[in-house]
């Protein structure tokens, strides 16, 4: 199966581990990703705060650049996913808006007809298109013994939840169980990580981060698995500062779901981007997953 691929700015650098592991896992599962040529930034939440029409036009450029042979685009980043999807929906549902956006696109010699490209998240592709059997088939090192807390964040499940429940999404839970992990069912799996608030109001952001780490810890998670660069950055990058601020001692590794899939698939952790996280994950994984410690020792 072939999809257009929109990595987004974060995956270029800050979330390189996500990009690496997505490509590795996709390759193994037979998902062919064709990166959109010369894509541009989705504008995150910031562009929409400034100028809705321009933000939409900027995003629509990416949709317009999708290879016409391909009907679907995969975006691993939650903000990119939402922005692409929202743009397509806005254009589809509001004819005058569509006309304005296309007028702007025309200035760059482009045109986009809403509905032509379906925007997908990597998790959906793996769970729905590839499916349980094919995933289980690839598992060579089941994650038995590892207690994993799936963390969905906001923008993949809201406001367009698709077939998921926007309050209690389950896809990552299922996926992790296929990998053999023990899935932690904790109440805040779709709560907010603080988003860009780390840049604007640290006390506010740190409180939100604390709630997530606290709940995962209360439910004895060894590790949090996430699906968005912003979530990973906030929970991992800021974990030390949150500890300082609240005088807590969280030490929870935060990795992308594709990274942990790669481990279960027996891929080389380096190629999956392990080591880029600030709270080291591999030692925890090796310590907890039955049999992995022994393998590592060899």
């Amino acid at each position, binding site marked *: 199966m072939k999809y257009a691929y929109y990595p987004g700015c974060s995956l270029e650098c800050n979330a390189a581990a996500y990009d690496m592991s997505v490509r590795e896992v996709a390759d193994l599962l037979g998902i062919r990703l064709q990166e959109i040529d010369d894509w541009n930034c989705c504008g995150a939440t910031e562009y929409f705060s400034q100028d809705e029409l321009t933000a939409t036009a900027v995003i629509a450029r990416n949709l317009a650049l999708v290879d016409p042979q391909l009907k679907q685009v995969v975006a691993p980043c939650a903000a990119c996913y939402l922005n692409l999807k929202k743009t397509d929906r806005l254009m589809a549902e509001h004819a005058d808006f569509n006309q304005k956006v296309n007028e702007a696109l025309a200035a760059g010699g482009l045109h986009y007809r809403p509905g032509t490209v379906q925007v997908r998240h990597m998790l959906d592709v793996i769970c729905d298109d590839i499916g349980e059997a094919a995933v289980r088939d690839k598992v060579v090192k089941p994650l038995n013994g590892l207690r994993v807390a799936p963390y969905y964040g906001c923008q993949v499940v809201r406001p367009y939840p698709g077939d998921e*429940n926007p*309050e*209690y999404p389950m896809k990552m839970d299922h996926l992790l169980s296929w990998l053999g992990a023990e899935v932690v069912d904790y*109440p*805040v799996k779709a709560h907010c990580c603080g988003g860009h608030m780390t840049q604007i109001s640290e006390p506010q952001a740190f409180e939100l981060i604390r709630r997530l780490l*606290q*709940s995962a810890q*209360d439910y004895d998670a060894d590790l949090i698995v996430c699906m968005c660069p912003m979530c990973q950055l906030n929970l991992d990058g800021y974990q030390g500062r949150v500890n300082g601020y609240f005088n807590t001692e969280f030490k929870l590794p935060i990795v992308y779901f594709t990274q942990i899939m790669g481990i279960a698939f027996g891929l080389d952790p380096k190629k999956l981007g392990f080591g880029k996280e600030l709270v080291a994950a591999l030692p925890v994984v090796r310590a907890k997953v039955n049999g992995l410690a022994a393998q590592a020792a060899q």
Partner: protein
Amino acid sequence: MAERVGIYVCHCGSNIAGMIDVEEVARWAGQSIKDVVVSRDYKFMCSSLGQKLIEDDIREQGLTRVVVAACSPHLHEKTFRRACQNAGLNQYLCQMTNIREHVSWVSTDRQKATEKAKALVAAAAERVKHQRPLEQGFVKVNPATLVIGGGIAGLQATLELADAGYPVYLVEREPSIGGHMAQFDKTFPTLDCSACILTPKMSEVGQHENVKMFTYAEVEEVSGSVGCFKVKIRQKARHVIFEKCTGCGICVEKCPRKVVDNVFEAGMGYRKAIYTPFPQAVPRTPVIDTANCTWFTRGKCQVCSKVCPTQAIDYDQKDEIIQIEVGNIIVATGWKLFDCTRIPQYGYGRLANVFTNMEFERMCNAAGPTGGKIVLRDGKTEPRRIAIIHCVGSRDVRHNQYCSAVCCMAALKFGHLVLEKTKAEVYSFYIDMRTPMKDYEEFYQRLLEEGMHFVRGKVAEVTDAARLPDEQGSLIVQVEDTLLGTQRRIPVDMVVLMAALEPQADAKELGLKLGISCSMAGWYTERHPKLDPVATMTDGVFVAGACQGPKDIPASVAQGAAAAARVAGMITAGKVTIEPIIASIDEQKCSGCRICNNLCPYNAIEYDEEKGVSRVVAAMCKGCGTCVSACPANAITGAHFSNEQIAAELEGILWDAIADGRPASAAPDGSKAPQSTPVGAA
């Protein structure tokens, strides 16, 4: 021979004449419309003098058609039809047109309003010339009545009719009559014991000589129409022979198989695999739940059969179809509870101590699973703080837009019971407090005085994710207190969700069998929301209670009685008139293509395989005309709304467009191009 048309334009005092130049309309109609022999305007056409005007003209001027331009035909069509009938003119040769509601009252420009009135008068005049005399038919009314649903509304209707001496068939889906009311402990606002006021009615129905009860039974098929419905009832196999069973209950006692009771006990308690839903059940005859009975699932046991003193157990019993004939049907099928797992942020199903209102009802009931004690799911701990959340699945366009009407009062009742039975603090989280009926507001005041806490705000979520030490181990209710304008987190031990009342899952399906429609929300639609609240669009079918919309007990009882009164009226009259506005098929033209066969929701069209033609069963046709306009062969005619009549109406209504300077060759009647060209001849 040309018709002789009389036109009567009403002033309605100044209601019409104030905005329309009625004299001008009458003058114009008399001059411009073909075949009009009389055209008058009059102060009040509906007055006896106005009617006399018409009657006299019919007699003296030999009118063959009458047009009255006045108010809505929904108000006075009958009046003027009667006037014509009095003067010997068939009532269907009278046409009303509405120049009050549709013209004078909605217009602001006298000249334009007058023009519109002229077009409407022209339309009626053109149409009336094509109308045909029609005769109403009559059907005798079978005095027996079918009541569907043995809840409080159905019971009330049953008793009213049976006491009046008329036979009633009562069909109930569950093994016992009683409905939801049998599950309740107390009833608001008087706090009477629900069972104490309900059970006498139940046994009265059970013993009434005029009532034939079918419990554990469902309506399978309905045919026929008002006066003479034929109904097939499926009597589900009880596996207990009704006639032999004495209701002693030994079988239930000895049955070794315990099953969670998801119906009567709302999942809070157990019953046996052979059971009566509750001790006061009517009838007392138990049923075997074959899905759980050890004999049926594993082929072992037969304890019930062994202990039964009257050999009433019959494992081989089969469903039975019973056919009855009735003149009228009362539908009182009630409601079902909203599924609270659809709102996962309230935690129902995930967080043990989140309860539904029905679970809480059972918990409060002294005969219920906890013996009336209010305790947590563990069965022993008394809660210290209880939250009651209103509008769960109601007033929410994502689920049900309507207000469920009873929850505010039920929440107050719960509050009272909690405060009476425990030392707990109790919080009500509401959007708006709705206490409009008699003594309801007083009950609210009473709870305010009893110290129930009220927080105005729809709860955002119920969570066990504690943020602060004092939240640990509690359920936290997160809400905006909208009167303070701040977010609050209130830790509690128990949450009660006031789940919405929803239409029965199969309401639509039953509606199709009966030929009655549902609102968008799924409640049965009454004939008129104010003036005809228990009748439906299908003659002889009435609705009562919550199947027509959320209702509390007093309202349900009132509707049950009202429906019974309507039925009794029909029975007393002995016969009903049948509207002649129906469809008919010209068998010569019909090719038997069968396009129409599927279109009638009343199954009034049947296909004659032998002749290869379709046919309309006159008694079942309601005259909607959908088949008429669907017929590709033009073989179906709709009486009183024929193609010719509507085409003529169009010609009248567009008289000025036709005359409005359109090119002559553009005449719409397909008239020929001018043939003026002289051609040189021999």
